[in-house]
């Protein structure tokens, strides 16, 4: 067993973001297919394009967590468009600003940062739980992460599992926000693409922030 990680450094966060981009690229077709069923079929290309732009800035010098995350957030805002651009962009922007000057995060401050980020998503999108959006993956994930106790790795794994479960739980939901809401009852029976991309973000977190080679969670995107 490798050394047990208790904090997340700037390089760790960079690894997380890089891995997120890889997963988005791998699952782009899947995400777009989910979006075709209840939206406009671009979520995969949006995420792939956004995180490719993010990968392009990760080589810059970042001293602090907030410098990195603000850069990531504004890169997403500037490159994604659509609904997911401002939402994910706001997530990283707020996550960053909540940690002014920090150079590493322990489990508690990581939770705090992500919670602030998710509040940003709520503020920007004016959605709540159960509306069949990415929030239905984010919220249970943060709750599970906070409740987990134990090591950072365990908490991340609990979060990722809850994100994946939250993603799957969007399937029967009737959307009341975003493009899928236009379908009314016909939106039920499909997984929300934004919830699926959120689960990928959590999968990447487990793979890069939990330490060791444990990749714990399932494959992240719905099959």
């Amino acid at each position, binding site marked *: 067993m490798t050394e047990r990680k208790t904090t997340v450094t700037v390089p760790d966060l960079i690894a997380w973001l890089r891995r997120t981009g890889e997963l988005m690229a791998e699952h782009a077709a899947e995400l777009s297919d989910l979006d075709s069923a209840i939206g406009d079929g*671009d979520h995969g*290309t949006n995420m792939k394009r956004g995180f490719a732009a993010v990968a392009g800035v990760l080589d810059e010098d970042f001293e602090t967590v907030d410098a990195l995350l603000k850069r990531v957030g504004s890169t997403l805002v500037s490159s994604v468009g659509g609904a997911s651009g401002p939402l994910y962009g706001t997530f990283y922007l707020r996550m960053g600003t909540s940690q002014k000057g920090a150079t590493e995060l322990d489990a508690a401050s990581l939770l705090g940062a992500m919670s602030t980020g998710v509040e940003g998503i709520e503020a920007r999108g004016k959605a709540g739980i159960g509306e069949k959006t990415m929030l239905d993956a984010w919220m249970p994930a943060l709750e599970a992460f906070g409740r987990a106790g134990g090591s950072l790795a365990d908490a991340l794994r609990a979060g990722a599992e809850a994100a994946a479960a939250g993603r799957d739980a969007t399937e029967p939901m009737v959307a009341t926000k975003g493009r899928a809401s236009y379908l009314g009852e016909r939106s039920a029976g499909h997984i929300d693409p934004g919830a699926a991309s959120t689960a990928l973000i959590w999968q990447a977190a487990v793979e890069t922030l939990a330490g060791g080679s444990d990749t714990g969670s399932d494959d992240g995107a719905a099959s």
Partner: protein
Amino acid sequence: MTPVTKPCSVVPMKKLINSPDTVVADFLEGMALAHPTSLRIDHENRVVLRGTPKDEGKVAIVSGGGSGHEPLHGGYVGRGMLDAACAGEVFTSPVPDQMQAATKAVDRGAGVLYIVKNYTGDVMNFDMAAELADAEDDIAVRQVITNDDVAVEDSTFTAGRRGVGGTVLVEKIAGAAAEEGRSLEEVAEVAERVNACARSMGMALTPVTVPANGKPSFELGDDEIEIGIGIHGEPGRRREPVASAREIAEKLLDPILAELPGEGPVLLMVNGMGATPLIELYIMAKEASQVLAERGVEVSRHMVGELITSLDMAGCSITLLRLDDELTALWDAPVHSPALHWSADDIQE
């Protein structure tokens, strides 16, 4: 030697494109080349601008949205209509940086009106741009969100009615009001009023194929049409057997009339979804005019053509705008854009 096995054959797309990745950039280059003096294009920010900016002291109008709805919005940049249009990726809202660049380029000291179609992504990206314009550039910005699509029935359980055909009318009339020298407040007010008086509904004969996906957005049988579609390949309200032009006109007009406010004459817009021959649109215009005559609605202005499209979707939408003297006069005012064009000496009708 092992025989070379063909890879799982991907049928190339039947589109006049170079690659799905370059669609928007190539399109904007084409626009720039085709309109070298009447338009100016900021390729870095993907903003279509007028070749000659409007006079100092007049309100500027910026619109934009995902690409794939041409001529909306870039084709409406010109005297009497838009000052700038921000082109997003296909079916994806532009990003705030684009609106910010456009805003700075077109502001003539009297503020800028954003015309935004009501989609979550568009609304959020324009919102962020408005915040930036206010905070960083100190330019007064007002936004009008268009939401004329009656196919979205229950707006409390949805993201609200979508902005569709009515957007073209808002852009034309707000453009005319701005050209008259009205204030930002006044231009925004008339734009709101057009939006409030416009209702639309669309239908598809075929789905749409987004270049990046390479496959149709939904399946539609050879004998089926989709009623109440949006302009992004979203499935519609319901699927029905193929019907006649007359029946389709009724299916679109009855829900529009049920929600159209006010009294008096209307503007009738018959719009093609991107792959609809003009001959069919005129047939729809005939049927729509006749249905309206039977329902006792007077049509005092007409517009027929491909005005707000959905890539290669075949089908049509109908928009009605309840007119009054002011809106009629603003509608009749000259417009000089690549896609909409009439001059002071044309008799309007």
